[in-house]
């Protein structure tokens, strides 16, 4: 490994990625292509998020990495180990302590600091929201330019008429700043309202697909839905975490012969909640 470069990637590449990020922040929800370097973790394993983190990270940053809400998941452990090895930055599991949080499939349960200083970096498999309805990149670009999201609306209509609601369970299409429709990465619907008007800078990196996009702090993020229909998120009513007793959070469901068991998906939230309940 080339130990002379801080944060692994060569400086020219970082510069290119930072420029793409600036463009992405200036045009919320717009997808910016970038060259996307190969990382020492495989494509599809968070190389887009990793490149963003490595391009913006500074010596003073404090890093948190989660996968499915968990700090100790395979992907999170590997990525955190790698980033701290090539940067020497401090790592944390504490959401409020972190200046950069790289995540796959979840937004941490804890509220973010209101000072806009935290950055949330999402790992994205499929950056183009239109891929489901139109796989051709040239046509996708044209559709975005014309705000032509008719095919998505038709899909939503067909699903609603047949199944009562959209069949999209995660990666739910969102309208950013009343302009572009965007893929929020495979977070559950539960996390969609939590993106709206958030004080964090939300950056999205798709390494394999070579795309970057962003939502600046305090930007409107609305799920695509019909006016007379409610946007229904996953419901866990009456359920509480078997470990810490928390309610009204996103749960991991574990199915055993003894029935279904529920635990907080955000493990750090679970730890803190447990500590609090033990203390009181």
């Amino acid at each position, binding site marked *: 490994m*080339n130990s002379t*470069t801080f944060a*692994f*990637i*060569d*400086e*020219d590449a970082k510069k*290119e990625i930072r420029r793409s990020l600036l463009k992405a922040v200036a045009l919320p929800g717009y997808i910016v*292509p*970038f*060259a*996307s*370097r*190969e*990382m*020492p973790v*495989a*494509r*599809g*394993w968070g*190389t887009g998020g990793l490149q963003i983190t490595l391009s913006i990270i500074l010596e003073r940053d404090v890093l948190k990495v989660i*996968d*499915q809400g*968990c700090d*100790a*998941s*395979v*992907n999170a*452990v590997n990525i955190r180990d790698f980033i701290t090895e090539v940067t020497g930055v401090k790592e944390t599991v504490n959401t409020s302590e972190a200046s950069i949080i790289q995540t*796959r*499939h*979840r937004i941490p349960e804890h509220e973010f600091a209101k000072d806009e200083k935290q950055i949330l970096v999402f790992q994205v*498999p499929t950056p183009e929201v239109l891929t489901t309805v139109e*796989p*051709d*990149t*040239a046509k996708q670009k044209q559709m975005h330019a014309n705000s032509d999201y008719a095919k998505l609306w038709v899909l939503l209509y067909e699903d609603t008429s047949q*199944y*009562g*609601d959209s*069949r999209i*369970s*995660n990666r739910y299409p969102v309208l950013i700043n009343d302009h572009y429709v965007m893929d929020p990465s*495979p*977070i*559950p619907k*539960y996390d969609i309202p939590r993106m709206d008007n958030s004080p964090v800078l939300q950056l999205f990196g798709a390494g*394999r697909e*070579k795309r970057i996009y962003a939502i600046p702090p305090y930007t409107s993020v609305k799920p695509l839905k019909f006016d007379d229909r409610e946007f*229904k998120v*996953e419901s866990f009513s009456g359920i509480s975490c078997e470990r810490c007793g928390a309610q009204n959070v*996103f*749960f*991991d*469901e*574990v199915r*055993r012969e003894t029935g279904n*068991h529920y*635990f907080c*998906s955000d493990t750090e939230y679970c730890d803190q909640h447990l500590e609090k309940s033990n203390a009181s």
Partner: protein
Amino acid sequence: MSYVAIKGGADSIRASKRFFRDSICLAKGIGDDELQKGLIFSCDRIMSEGALYSEKLAAEAMRRTGGDLFEAAFYLRAHRSTCRRIGEAEPLNSSSMRVLRRISSAFKDIEGGQILGPSCDYVIRLFRVKIGDTPEFSAARSGKSGLPPILTGNDSTPSGVECLRRRDQIIVLENKEEKPFDVSRSFPLPPYPRSALMQVMSRGETGAMLAFSYTSMRGYGDVHPTIGDLRIGYLSVEFIHPFTGNKVKIGEIRATACESIGSFNSDPKDGKLRLATGFGFCIGFNETKAIAMSILDMAMHHKGYSIGGIDIATNPEIIMHHVDGIESSGFANHFKLPHYVTFQADLQVLEKAKEQTDE
């Protein structure tokens, strides 16, 4: 039920890595020479798909991956990301290749001659023929051990298609690019420049390239090429010296080039009928990949004969995004990562839809 099991466990992950290193990947004792010379085609696939010409690193990558070519090429690509670009070499011209093997299936006799060179094409694939049974390659012609010196004395061996080009029988596509696109420095939006497509294919995964080109050869397309010129050999890499400004040879690389000829078509330039061609090129010796690439190049840039309505090989959108082995293998393997959250959400949606439809 322990909570740790749900978390996955950082310790288990670290143990898995050690387990792999100590029990699956046991190539520590195999030297660079054995790997580079004994497994030259593996070495070349790794360099070509890894987009980095380094035999040393290719051998090291093989040792670390147990010979998994996807993984080994991936090591080279990842290493590339740490290297700052120092400049651009002078363009390589495949007709200046010191050829080791050069054939044409279009003409019996071509300028420079048919040179079979070393090839396993003519080997009968039977285990009963022992490796030592065939007489050794004449030691007089091979200097040191390993690959023999070059068989042609010529500085330049023109492509076997050149004679047709001189007679104005070949479609020469208009080049609208001032300088080649560089996919490793930015990624193009459609319509994709030909140079970008060529770069993506040149570092593409051999199996993927073969499969996509095979669709066109077999029936979902119309490319039934004649190989105008296929060659493997050595190309000098030259660089402009930053201080003297002179051209300096910095080394030599193994490479494969293929020019294939397709059916005739109306030339967009003047409407006259001429033959279409396609070009394939990759670093290292890999004839299958170069042939596949030449077919894909031809299929994408000379449309018009396609039958059946299903176009795979002719569609730059398909080729651009689906031939890279680092990307496709990475994505296929990412499905092994936890998807608890998304699957949980899937199940909830299923339950709700069932309530609706069962009513």
